[in-house]
């Protein structure tokens, strides 16, 4: 009997604890595991460290105050360059930050995935990264004396990903042009939960797509959540584009003192089946 790793978003949240370091896959406002993020937003979890190529996942966890610390190379909504709730949290001093070069973030995850304490890199030298992260150290090559940044491992307690398809056993498939660093997040984490648009039989993963689209092996996943529109309002191509109208409403809500409460009442505090109907209607309206 092979493992059936199917879970609900709430099952995933039940596995999380206050103070955990959680890596979130995707990139900016692209293929973020938003249905699991929403379940976290509805939970009492707190003091979280979030590691992310950040988008609204980071912004919303700043808006609720559940993120205590963000490890990032950028936080952006892509079509709207600046993430309003992340900005507010940084400017109000309500969230701690480890800001890194995008490549250093990749290297930190790679080090964790390799179970080594650091990896050397050139990126970071000379920049404010070295001033703003006083714990960062350099290392001198034993071969030629080259001085490099010793990028520390970014070990994750949990990684959360959203894929286009997965099977019950936890093999995850990416049908868009880029799987970003989802595989690396999975390998850097003790446990990985992947949501997907559709759970399919293993044979159906390759019925119409190449084997190379299965980027995350079940070796590295612990739970699978079937979550249609699970990345909404971020994009999940080719299943659906970014919902720019909802993203605009989200960004605009930050300008109003009661804006977050209103946004979360409409787009967070509701059962997932209701959310899916709203998301489908909104995307249909944009077509």
């Amino acid at each position, binding site marked *: 009997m092979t493992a059936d790793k199917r879970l609900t978003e709430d099952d995933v949240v039940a596995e999380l604890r206050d103070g955990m370091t959680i890596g979130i896959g995707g*990139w900016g406002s692209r293929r973020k595991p938003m249905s699991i993020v929403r379940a976290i937003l509805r939970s009492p979890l707190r003091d979280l460290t979030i590691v992310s190529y*950040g988008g609204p996942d980071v912004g919303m966890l700043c808006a609720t105050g559940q993120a205590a610390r963000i490890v*990032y*190379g*950028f*936080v*952006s909504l892509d079509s709207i*360059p*600046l993430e309003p709730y*992340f*900005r507010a949290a*940084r*400017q109000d*001093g309500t969230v701690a930050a480890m*800001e*890194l*070069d*995008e*490549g*250093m973030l*990749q290297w930190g995850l790679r080090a964790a995935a390799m179970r080594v304490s650091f990896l050397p*890199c*050139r*990126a*970071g*030298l*000379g*920049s*404010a*990264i*070295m*001033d*703003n992260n006083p714990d960062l150290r350099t290392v001198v090559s034993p071969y030629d004396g*080259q*001085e*490099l940044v010793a990028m520390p491992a970014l070990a994750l307690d949990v990684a959360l990903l959203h894929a286009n398809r997965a099977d019950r056993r936890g093999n995850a498939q990416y049908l868009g*042009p*880029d*799987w*970003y*660093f989802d595989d690396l997040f999975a390998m850097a984490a003790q446990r990985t939960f992947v949501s997907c648009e559709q759970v399919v039989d293993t044979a159906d993963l390759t019925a119409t797509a190449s084997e190379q689209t299965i980027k995350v092996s079940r070796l590295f996943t612990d739970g699978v959540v079937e979550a249609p529109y699970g990345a909404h309002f971020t994009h999940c191509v080719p299943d659906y584009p970014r919902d720019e109208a909802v993203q605009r409403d989200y960004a605009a809500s930050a300008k109003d003192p009661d804006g977050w409460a209103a946004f979360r009442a409409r787009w967070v505090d509701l059962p997932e089946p209701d959310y899916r109907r709203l998301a489908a209607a909104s995307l249909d309206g944009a077509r």
Partner: protein
Amino acid sequence: MSDTPTLAEVCVVACAEAFRGDGEILASPIGVIPTLGARLAALTFEPDLVYTDGDAWQLAAPIPLGDDDAPKLVEAWLPFGKMFDIVWSGRRHVMMGATQVDQHGNQNIACIGPWARPKAQLLGVRGAPGNTVNDPTSYWVPSHSPRVFVPAVDCVSGVGYDRAAAAGPTASEFHAVRHVISNLGVFDFETPDHRMRIRSLHPGVTLDAVRDATGFELAVPDPLPTTRAPTDEDRRLLRDVLDPHDQRDAEVAG
């Protein structure tokens, strides 16, 4: 074409010129004018220059800006993981934006005010630290002002010449800030101490206007060159092939 070139056309050509001599490396332009500049360079004087659709596809022929569904002749797949590999290999010339840039070529896109508690949080440093110590880097500033051209940036995202030198040979061996292109002119660091110099002024722009819009002293060559005008072929390619929907004029006023 008998009418006068627009400022946007002049800026596109100035951005294209930043890639002259690059050969077969990846041009990574951020923004409309730099994107048009890189593609114009590839269609005219740098035929082996490599460029993408702005996403994961390396293109063998340009698609019109804004026509996202236009058929693409894809020659390679460059998802972000591959892009990072290319950055670290040195085979790339990125043209980024700059919220601030200083006289040594340090660039800031991360925040305004102290990093620990910024007055304005911006994007974060993104790939600027790694870009600048691995590959040639240029910057595009659509609105030249003393708020952008500052004596010292608030948060060094892209590394300038002074900081690269101070950080040692590993930081400086592949470091090169090539050009800063603005709506007023083209600037470089080809001075004995790598301080910013006027490389050329756009047609009709006076030295006083640039000095008034710059928060530090610029090195000024004598004579002062004028940015090369777009050729008729440059303008035809822009209007008919690269930017038929005229997105270029929205990014730079005048």
